[in-house]
């Protein structure tokens, strides 16, 4: 994919080979292509603007090297900048020395929280850890049944209150009881499956804050759909500001969405991307690789 991009820039910049420096003028066309690629990948337009500015500043004035073609040279600046933005820290989830590690999943409706709880459960069970999933969504019809069903398939315990009895008011209590049980029964990992909600729903956002205050989770992970558009910025900012995130899991990545939202989310929260969801099945979870994601976002 990167080669395609280089080729494209090559055509635009071929006149430059071995002569002079990259200037505002001679890289303008190439940067226009980059802008288009990023916008079509759903990177937020303000972030695109800043990005192009930074690339321009870095590229302009660079001598056109004999060893590199100008196209490659611009691609390299773009590429490095993208990888920097995406974060170079280690992805994945580390369990704490003092069990249980408590992970809280949050996000918009239908993002993939419940399914991802199952995926995390499967991953850590496979490493010999004891996992407890907590059904903390009494609102969505059959959300508890969904988690129970995943738990059953995986042979993982699910903590839940009888569907008919649980109400919204019980969410904090359910999470507390789940974490308590995790501690008492020697679980290594407790994953809280909260219900989907809008970042502008103050009552439901307040509920997440109350859960967080009550159980002090080690991780609060935003589960976000790879297909998300420009709204990713608003959504992620508000989840981070109101609840406080420690990381992000991007779902539905196996499709053909270019996934630029991940760049936006990363840029506004600064929080690491921990995993990628790459399918509906419970083994479809991958570790995030910034370089692969950069290629995908630029893919032309």
């Amino acid at each position, binding site marked *: 994919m990167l080669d395609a991009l280089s080729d494209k820039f090559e055509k635009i910049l071929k006149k430059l080979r071995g002569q002079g420096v990259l200037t505002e003028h001679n890289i303008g066309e190439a940067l226009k292509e980059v*802008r*288009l690629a990023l*916008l*079509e*990948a*759903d990177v937020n*337009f*303000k972030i695109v603007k800043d990005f192009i500015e930074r690339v321009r500043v870095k590229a302009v004035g660079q001598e056109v090297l004999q060893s590199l073609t100008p196209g490659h040279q611009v691609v390299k600046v773009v590429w490095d900048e993208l990888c920097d933005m995406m974060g170079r820290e280690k992805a994945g989830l580390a369990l704490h020395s003092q069990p249980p590690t408590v992970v809280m999943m949050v996000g*918009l*409706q*239908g*993002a*993939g929280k*419940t399914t991802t709880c*199952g995926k995390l459960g499967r991953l850590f069970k496979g490493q010999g850890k004891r996992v407890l999933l907590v059904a903390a969504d009494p*609102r*969505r*019809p*059959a*959300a508890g*049944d*969904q*988690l*129970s*069903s*995943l738990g059953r*398939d995986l042979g993982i315990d699910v903590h839940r209150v009888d569907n008919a009895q649980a109400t919204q008011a019980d969410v904090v209590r359910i999470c507390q009881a789940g974490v308590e049980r995790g501690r008492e029964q020697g679980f290594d990992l407790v994953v809280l499956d909260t219900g989907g909600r*809008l*970042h*502008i729903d103050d009552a439901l956002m307040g509920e997440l804050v109350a859960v967080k205050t009550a159980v002090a989770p080690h991780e609060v992970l935003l589960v976000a*759909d790879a*297909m*998300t*558009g*420009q*709204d990713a910025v*608003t*959504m992620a900012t508000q989840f981070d500001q109101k609840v406080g995130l420690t990381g992000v899991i991007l779902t*539905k990545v*196996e*499709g*053909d*969405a*270019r996934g*630029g*939202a991940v760049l936006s989310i990363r840029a506004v929260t600064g929080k690491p991307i921990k995993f990628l969801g790459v399918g*509906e099945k419970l083994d479809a979870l991958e570790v995030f690789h910034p370089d692969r994601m950069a290629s995908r976002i630029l893919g032309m």
Partner: protein
Amino acid sequence: VLGRTPDPAMLEELEAALLTADLGVRVVDRLMTHVREHARGADAANSEALQNVLSRTLYDVLAPVQGASLEQLIEKGPKPFVVLMVGVNGVGKTTTIAKIAQRLVQGGRRPLLVAGDTFRAAAIDQLQVWADRVGVDVIRHRHGADPAAVAFDGIVAAKARAADVVLIDTAGRLHTKSNLMEELRKILRVIGQALPGAPHEILLVLDATVGQNALAQARQFKEVVGVTGLVLTKLDGTARGGIVVAIADELKLPVRLIGVGEAVEDLQDFNQEAFIAALFGQPAARS
């Protein structure tokens, strides 16, 4: 002031609004070119006038999106009227079925739901909970059963029980998964065998939060199953669903309904003017 060109700052503001609403850079570039060409003279100095030029253009592009309402189709259509819901994962198919059922019941009709998602954990239970709340029946098989067989039974049951509308749920699937798209084709075939001419409406559910990928979804679902209408959900958030403009432009599919919340009454008919106003940041109407 004749021949005056619009203030770049004003243009930039409009462009920002459109990009933020997910219209997509190509559509936005085209619209902005149009505005630059058409806003001259006095209009050019007034940002409201510029927005009006844009709104009128959007209105034209969206003309094919404002089609008949689902109720009108049902009114004119055969009995039972069969609706198939399709779409990628988690967009709101099942919830929308419940909302439609509720509206039909209130309108004095007898809908029957069909639990055609036999794949996702507790998808059948989810539909059942909604059906119980709305007070309608569900035709269901076991988890893991053949979805086409459930659809077939649903239509047979609807005929036997004199239900007037059949709402068939399907499992979420990415448009890129050819085996799952093929499965939809099979469901379609079997429905046609159970009732020639059915399904009478194939609704693709799109999530307003989704960006440019929604166009690829619409293209592919239209190509494979012949989508006849769209439902745009989650418009109660801050996402505007502007990609519908690109979809209207290219595929001319009508938006039948919009989802504005998780509750069963949070369903509205699509309204072009309200939609355009919301694209520029005016809050979307809530029921």
